[in-house]
């Protein structure tokens, strides 16, 4: 049994830098784009679970094998993917070069990227994230400064955190919109 902290550390250090390549891999092999975020997290969860019995020697191969197996299994269950795609999936090897390029890019650009990520946010969101990150204000202090309620600050910060974290991990950094199904459920 590996201790939890070592697994968390490994996950952040070795698995998360794969996110851009992994996202592309899932997107390329799965039709519904609104499922990509969930599939990505399913791969992460399986990777975390598997690591409890020992950290893999080769993280990239380990993670992409999980992704391929998951997509294959889901495709079969969903009966929505043609036989050809399944064959294609099983023969598809993750792109090594793309991955190593991503990893360097993400690590090297943290400083520049953080600023760009914040600039990408909508104005109100940007303001609370700035107060938090740059000025180090607590939620209460930010609420007082802006003359709004704590709930409003938390709501904007949550949105901003999600978008900024996504951007820092190599994603587009858009504010997440509820998926079509969620919107339908809500409107019921």
């Amino acid at each position: 049994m590996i201790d939890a902290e070592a697994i968390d550390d490994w996950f952040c250090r070795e698995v998360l830098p794969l996110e851009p390549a992994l996202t592309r891999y899932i997107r390329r092999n799965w039709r519904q784009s609104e499922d990509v975020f969930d599939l990505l997290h399913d791969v992460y969860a399986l990777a975390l679970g598997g690591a409890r019995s020992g950290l893999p020697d080769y993280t990239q191969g380990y993670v992409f094998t999980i992704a391929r197996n998951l997509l294959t299994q889901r495709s079969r269950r969903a009966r929505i993917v043609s036989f050809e795609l399944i064959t294609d999936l099983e023969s598809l090897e993750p792109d090594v070069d793309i991955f190593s390029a991503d990893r360097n890019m993400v690590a090297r650009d943290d400083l520049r990227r953080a600023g760009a990520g914040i600039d990408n946010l909508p104005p109100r969101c940007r303001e609370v994230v700035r107060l938090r990150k740059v000025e180090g204000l607590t939620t209460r202090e930010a609420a007082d400064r802006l003359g709004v309620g704590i709930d409003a600050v938390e709501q904007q910060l949550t949105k901003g955190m999600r978008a900024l974290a996504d951007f820092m991990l190599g994603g587009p950094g858009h504010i997440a919109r509820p998926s079509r199904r969620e919107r339908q459920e809500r409107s019921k």
Partner: protein
Amino acid sequence: MSGPAHRATDLAALWILRQEEPDWTAEQQAELDAWLDESLLHRAAYLRLREGWRRADAVARDEAPETPDEIQQAAPRRWQPWAMAASIALIFGISGTTWWRAPAPVAPVNFATPIGGHQTIGLADGSRVELNTATAVRAAIDGDMRTVWLDRGEAYFEVAHRNGVPFVVHAGVRKITVLGTKFSVRREGDKVSVAVTEGRVRVEDLSPAKASRAAVITAGDLAIARGGSTLVALGAKEKVEDALAWREGMLTFTSTTLGDAVAEFSRYSSRPILIPDAAVAAIRIDGAFEADNVDAFLRLLSDAYGLRVEQDAKHVRISA
């Protein structure tokens, strides 16, 4: 299939926000631990978000320095390895809840160490300040405000937690507001370095005629401020450890140029060490040395590096 990861991420975001707040309690931590143990999806969403959010701490760096100086030019080369060592340290923000108030007039108390000196002093509020060689500080502590001025040298602070009573260190035009507990500040002319071992601090530039600028750095981070710019190295745990080796009376060098190493030793000795040859000053060295034992260091230079060391009463001269 759409949904669960988004919901888990929204919840994780709230946990992370609340965890950064000053009033985060052990009970809340236990609740968070339980939530994380509930499902691997929760854990994955939380770790991912925390890591991405933490990386954005890099923005604490000055955003538009007006006078690019040597720190900035050196930045990409020197700081890249540490930037890569993405830290996952939990950020426990323990911040004072009171905003800056005008300090009540209290007569400051003076403390100083001579060259080669090393002394720990206790302040009235229970905080401790450890002074390195050739250091002078003034401290004014009262019920509303705790202020320390670092007039020269280097000091390590362990700040006693007092709700609502800010602890502020002034180093020249830099103001360091303590949001956490343990950190060191070093001042060489207008260059101010801040290394944090626990908690969070805010480093501000109070130069007149400049928009107020601030950088918040957390445990394992290092900020170097000079002129109009502040450079922040995140997750520079090893560098922070090296920077604090003086507390054990040691100097630690990791691929440091001989010129920089000698400058370090010179802080502890009144006899200057000269290196006339730039090629010799550029030699990189590694190792840990006793700060007050310059002789051992010089012996290593002649034995291991084959350098010539000449000494007289006033100077030490190193050459090839």
